[in-house]
């Protein structure tokens, strides 16, 4: 896996490697302690519980792989998995492209740029119930602003949130609206690209597209990598908006895997089953993440590699 930054690794004397390892552990100590104290334990417990009939109320009994076999034969589980997959396949690349595009525009030295940055970040500061109410109104079939706009160009918009085919599209649109966070990370990444490189390219007569293609994109690839990995993780666990805006409806059309899981954990008293769902989801996310990590040497460009050692 390409997490190694390792070009530096030369034949070091043993003591030096050991000192370096010692310092590395000191630096990593908060994370190691955090894992030990707060996060790994609950994860392992949830794994154990996924093989049990735990319902939060009474003592659990281990029931082998019952939850997993039940899960795999449950059509609603597959449906919810499919919904999450469709959502991720569309929203992750769409979000990345739009965020990158906006970040490049917002990285320009033009007047009022701070104002623009604030506006584009604005959607991410509002969350929870307020934003849900807002979207219900925006997607209203007859009076919602989206359909009013569509009717101006003679298109009769769908009844978004009540329509089985369009409710998911509506949620994808809301995710794009909240792309400000990803954009901000790209923006921070753009700040790290030496301006001189751009100027040099400009002097060399490179056109804007090739400048973007050969300088900006490669130098930003580490940030793109981050946004891609976290985008996949986030999209497959997408929960809050579906929970509050559509509640999984209509007719389970927005029953994302995380919503399905929540219901079993806290509404149907099937916690063991919910834990099994989450571990299946974990495996899928892990597999995809490893895939992205494996592919990274092909497209992620790190500073230390630039030095060509």
């Amino acid at each position: 896996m390409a997490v190694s930054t390792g070009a530096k690794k030369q034949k070091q004397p043993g003591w030096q490697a050991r000192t370096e390892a010692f310092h590395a552990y000191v630096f990593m100590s908060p994370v190691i302690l955090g894992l030990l104290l707060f996060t790994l334990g609950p994860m392992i417990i949830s794994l154990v519980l996924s093989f049990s009939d735990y319902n939060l109320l009474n003592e659990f009994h281990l029931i082998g792989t019952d939850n997993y076999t039940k899960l795999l034969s449950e059509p609603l589980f597959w449906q919810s998995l499919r919904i999450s997959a469709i959502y991720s396949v569309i929203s992750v690349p769409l979000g990345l492209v739009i965020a990158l595009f906006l970040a490049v525009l917002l990285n320009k030295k033009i007047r009022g740029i701070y104002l623009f940055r604030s506006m584009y970040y604005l959607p991410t500061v509002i969350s929870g119930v307020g934003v849900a109410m807002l979207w219900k109104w925006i997607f209203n079939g007859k009076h919602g602003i989206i359909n009013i706009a569509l009717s101006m160009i003679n298109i009769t918009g769908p009844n978004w949130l009540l329509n089985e085919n369009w409710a998911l599209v509506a949620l994808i649109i809301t995710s794009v609206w909240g792309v400000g966070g990803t954009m901000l990370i790209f923006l921070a990444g753009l700040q790290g690209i030496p301006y001189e490189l751009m100027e040099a390219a400009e002097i060399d007569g490179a056109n804007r597209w090739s400048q973007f293609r050969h300088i900006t994109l490669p130098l930003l690839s580490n940030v793109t990598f981050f946004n891609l990995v976290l985008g996949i993780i986030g999209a497959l666990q997408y929960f809050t908006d579906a929970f509050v805006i559509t509640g999984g409806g209509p007719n389970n059309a927005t029953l994302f895997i995380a919503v399905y899981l929540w219901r079993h954990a806290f509404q149907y008293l099937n916690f063991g089953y919910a834990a099994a769902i989450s571990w299946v989801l974990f495996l899928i996310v892990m597999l995809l993440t490893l895939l992205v990590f494996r592919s990274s040497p092909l497209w992620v460009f790190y500073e230390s590699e630039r030095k060509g050692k």
Partner: protein
Amino acid sequence: MSKQHDSAQQRIDRRSFLRIMALGTAAVSAGVLAACGAATSEKPAAPAEVQKIKALMWSNSPKLDENFKKRADMFNAKYKGQYEATMELLPWDQYWPKVDLAYASKEPIDVYFWDVQAYGHYTQGKLKNLQDDLNKVGDFANPDMYPQEQMAVWKFDGANMYAVPENIQTMALFYNKKIFDEAGIAYPNDNTTWDDIKVIAQKLKKGEGADVTQWGFDVGDLAVWWGSISLAWAQGGGYFDKVVEPTKFTFSSPEAVNALHWIQDIMYVEKLAPDSETRSVVGQETGIFGSGKVAMYPGGTWMISSNAELPFEWDVAPMPKWGDKRAMPYFFGGWVVPKDGKHTDAATAWAIWCATEYQAEMAITGDWIPIRADARNSEAFLKAMPAGFKSVSDAIGSAQIGDVYSAKVQQILGEIISPTLDQVWNNKITPEEAGKQIDEKANKILAGG
């Protein structure tokens, strides 16, 4: 994690390092697993100590929430030196997770407000049998004070109460007096039928197609299963064979299909009521009545206190009749006490006090309809209610419980009934198809599928 230059030495280091991490994590995990697996040791409270309890309810509105806190003050004044209750109010979405987490941590909430989810707690043996305590309450068995027949439903095992009802709710027909007055049409009354509703709604509708400016009717809470079941009951049918642990759903019965048809048709065939699309204008369906553009709608009586703030005159009538029979749901609000709570005496005292002594005060606040007849019929309460309320309250005798109790019912409602009814209200499928689909899938889950 492939680093080709890893030396064998380092690999061993890594392994021993991981072993240390695994051990540390295992220690933490074991501790917590023990906590959620094993029973806790009892912590006996010293007898002289004040028993401090927490009462949990979900948040309704600032006014109602405030009155719950005042209620705790009254309780604490009465039981000073003996019991002390703290009222905690949570938003609905966090209410049940918090109750369940408290159970999981072996420190259950001392006393919490009932809703059907608590039936699951009963089936898991977590609730205290309150029958003995209730037997000691003077007039709890008096049918003139407490509606015995209705309360019997809460004897899940056939003999004992596991929850103490403190208020009773039902459905009523809310109507906008101004709209009726303008049209010179008589208000709905005790004898209005569902057929009459369509006739009246036709007269009160203004505009056609996309330009309707006033609707004669809105389906209101008929869009929820416990609302629409009223129409099936009134024909002598229903949606399931029995309330406690049903063995069969009957959505495809003629009465049930008729009920769904009536509601779907008034939206999409006769077009006398706004369809689902129009109803969702602001996301809050019941707000449509608040717009003043709907003449009447069937809704829960708990909306009476919220509707009190509307800027026009309105009143309530009993739910209309189907032919000559009236039916509607009723619901209880009340308290359940976990049997493993730290202070079950105090918690039981709270639940019973709310259903007895506090009833007079509940009547004064007008927040809830008191279960006790003398409070419900008191002048103080009726004064806070709209004029037509008395006839609604009197009709409760013909009401049936608007719940269904089964460990699997939450899942059946969430995964099958609600999504399928959504399709009916959106005119995507016919009631006949919906009935067939629901029965097929729901009965399969009931059978253990």
